């Protein structure tokens, strides 16, 4: 499979005015194959946005190199930029101009006409509010406007940094479906996201970044495989009594209303049964939860805030 993004030994460090050094990205290697949706995950400050900025030529790497659509992004990015749509962090537009005017002005830089602007606005569900001033847009609407701007060039590669930021649940769902559709059209969508459940649902491949290094990458199945479940679902008649019994035995238990979620490996299932049985509490169901991307993420990064 051909690579659309290749990052080799990328390092970026910043120095403040006192000369104090802070490392944003440390020798990152990353390969993103062509086609499909690629999730780029990492805790806050792990270097996701810096990596995206390096890819788009907004930041000069301290070391290493980034190749995007086959060109070195620090040298000949302009050659391929018309095939790349991007949103970096919160999309920034001119607040005193309408969403439509903002897109038309961006489009004019590449000779893109008003009909493409209308199409892009419709695609992100912003056609009704397109003529409102951008300063009156909510964060979610600004995200949609940013995505519309990214779609204007009919890009082969979309780079979206936290595209679901500020969106309500319905908006997140719409954007998820849009991203899936874009991926299914043969484009490559590279997204960084905080919402791991969304990433798991829409991404074909993921990479997990922590402290500026890539600690896991591959298809979602590959990343999840080999990981042992860390929670058991326990169903019984008296949930409150069951929870109290398990907690007294040293388990961490969460009452989900219809079942208990016990922080324990599958190997502890026998002990859970024994503890409950000793108190005359009989199980109607005991199963290991599926491993989620969130579990893997927390295990790899040790950070509860992706």
């Amino acid at each position, binding site marked *: 499979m051909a690579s659309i993004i290749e990052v080799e030994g990328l390092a970026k460090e*910043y120095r403040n005015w006192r000369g104090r050094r802070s490392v944003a990205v440390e020798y990152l290697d990353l390969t993103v194959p062509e086609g499909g949706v690629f999730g780029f995950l990492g805790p806050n400050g792990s270097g996701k946005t810096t990596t995206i*900025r390096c890819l*788009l*030529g*907004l*930041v*000069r790497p301290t070391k290493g190199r980034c190749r995007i659509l086959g060109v070195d992004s620090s040298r000949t*990015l*302009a050659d391929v*930029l018309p095939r*790349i749509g*991007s949103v*970096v962090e*919160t*999309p*920034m*537009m*001119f*607040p*005193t*101009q309408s969403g439509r*005017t903002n897109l038309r*002005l*961006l489009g*004019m*830089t*590449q*000779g893109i006409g008003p009909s493409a602007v209308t199409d892009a606005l419709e695609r992100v569900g912003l056609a009704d509010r397109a003529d409102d001033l951008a300063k009156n847009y909510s964060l979610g609407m600004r995200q949609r406007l940013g995505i519309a*701007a990214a779609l204007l060039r009919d890009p082969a590669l979309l780079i979206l940094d936290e595209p679901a930021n500020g969106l309500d649940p319905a908006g997140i769902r719409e954007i998820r479906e849009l991203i899936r559709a874009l991926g299914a059209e043969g484009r490559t969508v590279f997204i960084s996201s905080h919402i791991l459940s969304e990433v798991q649902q829409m991404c074909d491949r993921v990479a997990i970044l922590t402290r500026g290094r890539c600690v896991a990458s591959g298809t979602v199945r590959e990343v999840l495989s080999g990981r042992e479940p860390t929670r058991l679902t326990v169903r019984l008649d008296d949930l409150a009594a069951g929870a109290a019994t398990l907690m007294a035995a040293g388990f961490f238990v969460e009452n989900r209303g219809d079942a208990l979620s016990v922080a324990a490996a599958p190997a502890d299932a026998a002990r859970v049964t024994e503890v409950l049985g000793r108190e005359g509490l009989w199980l109607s169901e005991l199963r290991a939860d599926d491993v989620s991307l969130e579990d893997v993420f927390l295990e790899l990064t040790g950070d509860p805030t992706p």
Partner: protein
Amino acid sequence: MRILRVELVRCLHRRLLWILAFAAVIGCLLTLVLTLVNVKDTDPINLVDLWPPRDQGDPVLLIAITIAILGALVFGSSMVGAEWKSGTVPTLLTWESRRVRVAVTKIAAPAIVAAVLALVLEALFAASLLPVIVSKGSTAGTDSKFWRALSGGTLRGSAVIAMAGALGALIALVARTTSAATGIAFLYLNLVEGFLRGFVKSSRSWLLTDNAVVFLTGHRLEHGQVGHSTLQAGLTLAAYTIGLTALATSVFRRRDL
């Protein structure tokens, strides 16, 4: 050219431009009223006073040009400063990654708009004096020498106004805020050049303000100490503008965004 067109459209969308233009129109109307009220028959304004040929008095039009220079400086700073503030510079760079091109157009666009608008406002200012000239003054002395002086002065005025717009923009490109850019420009022009003018006489040939005055007036305003001819002053100003544009572009090109 596409990006220059976009920047020009952005300039025209900028509210400050129209506020300044509106203020200039109000200023012209005030000039009309004040001159009608105050100009005496014994000391009339004649058409030739707009830009008298060399050594025949100070050009009245210079008042409008001086104010327009300050307005262009603020407008240029605001154009680029507002882009930094709204965060649209990185957005644009994801569309046009050739930073030199982006920087040069961001500096050129306010300069072009300021120059064109200045020509219109200079004409409006001159027109606002016409009723007084017709009623209390005369059109005597408006020979070809006068029209040459007027058109030359007006064009040089627009060139200096364009340069002020470019300077405002290029300082803001580095300083990233409108207030910092205008502050730096005014501090430099008033304090630094004022100090040099007062204490380092030999530097006068190289000061922006002195060269601007020489270029605009052709040695009319007691700037005999500036050893430059009008052409040399113009070339000095052009060299400063090009040099500072290159410097600002170089800083912008290397900056992490």
